[in-house]
């Protein structure tokens, strides 16, 4: 063989040796997995897409770049412009920040690997977008709200989404009320799970209370509101006090009212006080009568003493009590005085008559002096 032929053969063998492994390796690179956080996006959510590839071949493969394409779901992060080699039997992950810009549904943005030898790997990654929010409902509230009276309100939050919602919390918002706690943390709600939050609500005015439910889908914060209109009404269970069996007796300086007070409600009345109201002036010994706690269907006797103007024909008997939360309630019963008459002293006549005592002392001194003088002169 001629030397020239040997050189040609040698060059061909060298060239073949250089090209042959690369050509065989591109087929061995495969996408082994793709993950999205959060697994299901909502419209406008930002998430992370991670794609893992593996070189199943015996030789390393040179990769030029990696990109994510697609509409509906767009990549916010840049492509990988220069990836380099992926060794035989090794894996490599690519992470992209994506945003769901389209509507609901499942989108397939393609993941593309460009190899150094001009070949490419194209892999459509499924991305699910579902806009269903959490649900919130009021499952418990008082029969009626009363100004200043505390009532329990229970909010139930449910997760109809296919993925877990994290950091779920409920915050009451608005004016004209106070709530305890000021916010309630439920935490993570898995798919189809529900959690509850209980608030002690004390309204000061008629208002709308908005319970805002906040949660996170991945790094995206979402909120829904549920509104509770607060209008004042009569509590069907509250204590209801009646004054009965009233007997008015005139006595020196005023009147004495004896009667019974009865609780016709379904709750106990606490710190029950009974006193005569204006224009009557309470007098000793029973300016005010303290009954104490009056349970439902219980009755207690009372008596009050007071003075009234000469032309007074009726006076109010005021009944005060508190509920279990300490809220004060006042009721009035009008008592007729026209059938009774009495004599009453003026306001200025109360207390010790200092002037009268002084006059008496002066008179005593004068008389004792006169008597002493008369015996001295005897």
């Amino acid at each position, binding site marked *: 063989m001629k030397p020239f032929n040997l050189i040609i053969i040698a060059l061909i063998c060298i060239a073949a040796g250089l090209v042959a492994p690369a050509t065989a390796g591109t087929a061995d690179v495969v996408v082994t997995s793709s993950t999205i956080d959060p697994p299901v996006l909502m419209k406008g959510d930002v998430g992370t897409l991670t794609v893992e590839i593996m070189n199943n071949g015996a030789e390393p493969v040179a990769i030029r770049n990696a990109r994510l394409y697609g509409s509906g779901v767009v990549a916010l992060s840049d492509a990988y412009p220069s990836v380099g080699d992926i060794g035989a039997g090794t894996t490599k992950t690519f992470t992209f920040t994506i945003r769901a810009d389209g509507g609901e549904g499942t989108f397939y943005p393609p993941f593309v690997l460009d190899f150094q030898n001009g070949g490419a790997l194209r892999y459509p990654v499924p991305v699910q977008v579902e806009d269903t929010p959490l649900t919130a409902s009021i499952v418990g509230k008082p029969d009626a709200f009363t100004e200043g009276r505390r009532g329990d309100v229970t909010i139930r939050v449910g997760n109809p989404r296919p993925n877990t919602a994290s950091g779920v919390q409920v915050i009451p918002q608005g004016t004209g009320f106070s709530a305890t706690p000021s916010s309630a943390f439920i935490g993570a709600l898995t798919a189809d799970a529900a959690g509850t939050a209980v608030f002690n609500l004390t309204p000061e005015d008629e208002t709308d209370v908005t319970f805002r439910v906040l949660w996170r889908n991945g790094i995206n914060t979402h909120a829904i509101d549920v509104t509770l209109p607060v209008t004042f009404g009569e509590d069907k269970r509250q204590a209801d006090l009646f004054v009965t069996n009233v007997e008015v007796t005139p006595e020196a300086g005023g009147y004495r009212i004896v009667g019974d007070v009865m609780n016709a409600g379904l709750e106990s009345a606490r710190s029950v006080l009974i006193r005569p109201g204006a224009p009557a002036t309470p007098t000793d010994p029973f300016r005010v009568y303290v009954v104490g706690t009056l349970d439902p269907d219980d009755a207690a006797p009372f008596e009050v003493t007071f003075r009234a*103007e*000469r032309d007074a024909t009726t006076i109010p008997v005021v009944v005060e009590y508190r509920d279990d939360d300490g809220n004060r309630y006042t009721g009035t019963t009008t008592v007729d005085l026209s059938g009774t*008459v009495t004599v009453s*002293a003026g306001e200025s006549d109360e207390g010790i008559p200092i002037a009268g005592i002084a006059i*008496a002392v002066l008179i005593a001194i004068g*008389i004792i002096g006169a008597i002493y*003088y*008369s015996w001295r002169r005897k």
Partner: protein
Amino acid sequence: MNTGLLRVLIDPGRFFEDRMQDEPGLKMPALIVLIYAIISAVAAALMVNVIIDILPAEAQAFAVFGIAIAVVGALIMGFLTWIVVAAVLHIISMLFKGEGAFTRTLEFTGYAFLPQAIGGIIGAAFSYRIISGLTIPVVTDPEQIIMVTEALAEMIAADPLTQIASLVGILFVLWSANILIFGMKHARNLSTRDAVLTVGIPVALYIAYILITLLGLIP
């Protein structure tokens, strides 16, 4: 010191000693008792006026009639009291072998009403103060009139000023008693001890009665 009638208040011993030099005269004692009776009548009229105020307008036409009865009654009671007191003292003094005409006892007892006249003015002032502070309703029912009258009596009795007025009244009684001791000593020619006993026994009983009433021991 000679200041006329007022001498009986502070120097009754000398006053009665001087009076014993003259014949018994009842004009001045009667005048003193009359003044005392008039003051009592005014106080009584004041009280009756209050009670009349309870009555309805048509019944108040009888107010003058009621007041007139009260005034006349008080005048009569004033003189009756004078005579009764003089008689009681005269009788008691007999136990101590007192000597002297009843006219003299009556005369000197009349002078002893002078502190009562002064006390009557002060008592009337106290009564007016007590009554003016009361609010008394107008009633039409006879039962209510009784009810209000009872309440009025309770109110007046319970008033601290009433108690003070009673104590002041006792002071004036003591003053009158002091004058009576000297009066009875001269009128009935008693020793000082016997005069004190003659006057002191009935006066002590009277004061005891007032105090017991004041303390509520007698309803």
